[in-house]
C-alpha cells in the first residue's frame, strides 16, 4: 500500500474528555482511497469521537491526522481545507430548519465553493435526483420524513464534492421502514467508489457494503479485518461476545 493511496491516516490518536473519560486511546487507522470502512463497537467506545476528530469538530490531545496529504493541525486554514474535503452525516440530520431542501444543499456550494446560483442549482438538482427526492426540493425540513431529511443531509454533504464521507449512525434515528432508503443511497455511493467511514449498528449492511470492519472498545481497536472474514471468523473472544449480543 503506497502512501498516496492512503487518504486518511490517523496515528496514535488520544482524546480524554474533561471528566477523565478516555474516548480515544492511541487509536491508529489508515483508510485507502475508495475503501469503505465500517466501525462498530459498544456504546461509549469512542466511535463518534473518532469521526468528529477526523474533521476537526473535536480536538485531539495527541497523535496526528493527515487527510489527502493535508495535516489536521492547529492551523485554521488546514482545518477549513479538510472540512471542505470531508463530508459528514449526523444521526440527528442537522438540516438548517429555516431553509428548504434546495437551499440547504445550495448553501456551501455558494459560500464555500463560490459557485454562482445557477451553477449551484444544477448540482443541487442532480444530487436531489441521486437521493431520489427531486419533488421535495422546495420543502422545509419539518415537512419531510426522517428518511427524506437524512437523504437531503447526504446530498448537502455531497454538494461539496468531498473526497471522504463520514456517517455517524446515519440511520439510528429513523423509523425501521425508512432505514432502507438511506442505506440504499449509501450503497450507491460505495459502489461509485466514494471513500467512506461508517459508524453503524446495521450489521447486515456492514457485512455487505463494508470492505473492512473495525471493532473498537474503550477507544482502542480490538479487531479489524476484511468484512466477510470478520463476520464469519471473528478472532477475538470480545468480538464474538459483541457480535453474539448484537446479531
Amino acid at each position: 500500500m503506497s502512501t498516496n493511496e492512503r487518504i486518511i491516516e490517523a496515528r496514535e490518536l488520544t482524546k480524554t474528555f474533561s471528566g477523565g473519560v478516555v474516548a480515544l486511546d492511541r487509536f491508529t487507522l489508515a483508510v485507502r482511497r475508495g475503501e469503505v470502512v465500517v466501525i462498530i463497537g459498544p456504546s461509549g467506545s469512542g466511535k463518534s469521537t473518532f469521526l468528529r476528530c477526523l474533521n476537526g469538530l473535536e480536538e485531539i490531545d495527541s497523535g496526528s491526522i493527515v487527510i489527502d496529504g493535508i495535516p489536521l493541525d492547529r492551523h485554521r486554514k488546514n482545518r477549513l481545507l479538510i472540512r471542505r474535503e470531508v463530508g459528514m452525516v449526523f444521526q440527528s440530520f442537522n438540516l438548517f430548519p429555516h431553509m428548504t431542501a434546495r437551499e440547504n444543499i445550495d448553501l456551501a456550494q455558494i459560500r464555500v465553493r463560490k459557485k454562482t446560483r445557477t451553477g449551484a442549482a444544477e448540482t443541487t438538482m442532480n444530487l436531489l435526483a441521486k437521493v431520489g427526492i427531486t419533488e421535495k426540493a422546495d420543502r422545509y425540513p419539518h415537512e419531510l420524513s426522517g428518511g427524506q431529511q437524512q437523504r437531503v443531509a447526504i446530498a448537502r454533504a455531497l454538494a461539496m464534492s468531498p473526497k471522504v464521507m463520514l456517517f455517524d449512525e446515519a440511520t439510528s434515528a429513523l423509523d425501521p421502514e425508512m432505514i432502507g432508503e438511506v442505506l440504499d443511497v449509501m450503497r450507491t455511493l460505495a459502489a461509485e467508489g466514494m471513500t467512506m467511514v461508517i459508524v453503524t449498528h446495521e450489521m447486515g449492511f456492514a457485512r455487505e457494503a463494508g470492505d473492512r470492519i473495525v471493532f473498537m472498545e474503550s477507544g482502542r481497536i480490538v479487531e479489524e479485518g476484511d468484512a466477510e472474514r470478520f463476520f464469519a471468523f471473528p478472532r477475538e473472544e470480545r468480538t464474538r461476545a459483541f457480535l453474539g449480543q448484537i446479531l
Partner: protein
Amino acid sequence: MNKLFHMPAGVRRTALTDSGKFFLLAGLVVWLLTLGTQGMGYHWQWYRVPRYLFTTAGGVWKAGPLLQGLGTTLEISLLSLLCTLIIGLTAALFRLSDSFTARALARSYLELIRNTPLLIQIFFVYFVVSPVLDIGAFASAVLALSLFEGAYAAEILRAGIVSLHRGQWEAAHSLGLGVFDTYRDVILPQAVRRVLPPLAGQGISLIKDSSLVSTIAIYDLTMQGQKIVAETFLAFEIWFTVAAIYLVITFSLSFAVRALENRMNGLPIRGAGGIA
C-alpha cells in the same frame, strides 16, 4: 354563527368578565380623577390643547410643538434602534467569541451599562464624552441611548444564539463554512426569529427611555410638553396628551411586531432539524 366566537364557554366567560372588570376599573379611575381635580378647583381646558398639536392657519396644516417633539423622539429612537442592534450584536458575538480579550471587553461593557442608571449615562456622554469627541446634544443622546439599550439587546441576542442546537454549528462547520458565514446564514436567522418578542420589547423600552434625553436640552416630545406646561399651566391636559402619544406609538409597534411574529410562525423554525 361567526367562527371567531366558537370557543369553549369557559374561555368566553373569562374574556367577558375580564374586559368587564377592566372597564369598571378604568371608569373608577376616571371618576376619582374628575372628583379630585374638581376638589382642587382645576379647570379642564382641553380646547386649548389642539393648537399645540397642529395649527391650520390660512388653510395650511402645520405641526405644533408636540408633533414636532414627536418627530424628534421618533428620529432619535429610530437612529438609536439601528445603533442598538449593531452594538447589541457586536457585544453578543464578542461575549461568545473564542478570544479572551473580546469576551472581557464585552463583559465589562455589559456590567458597566447594566449597573448604572441611564440618566447618569446620558449626563456622562453629554458632559464628558461629547466635548471630547466634539459631538452635539443630538448625537450624544443617540450614543447614550444605543449604548444603554445595546447592552440589553446583546443579552437577548446571546440567549437566542446559545438556544440553538449544537448540531447546527457542527453541520455548518462540517460543510466548511467559516464562523462569519455560519453566523450570517445559519445561526442568526434562526436566533433572531426566536428572540423577536423580547427584542421588540427592548425597542419599545427604547422609545420610552428616550424621554430622558429631554434632560440634555433636546426638544423631544417630553421636553416640548414640559415647555408648554411651564408656559400655560395646562399640566393635566398636556401630560395626558403626551402620555397618549407615547402610548399610540408603542402600541402600534407592539401590534406590528405581533403581526410579524404571526407571519413568521408560518415558517418552520420550531420544528428544528432532526431530533434536536
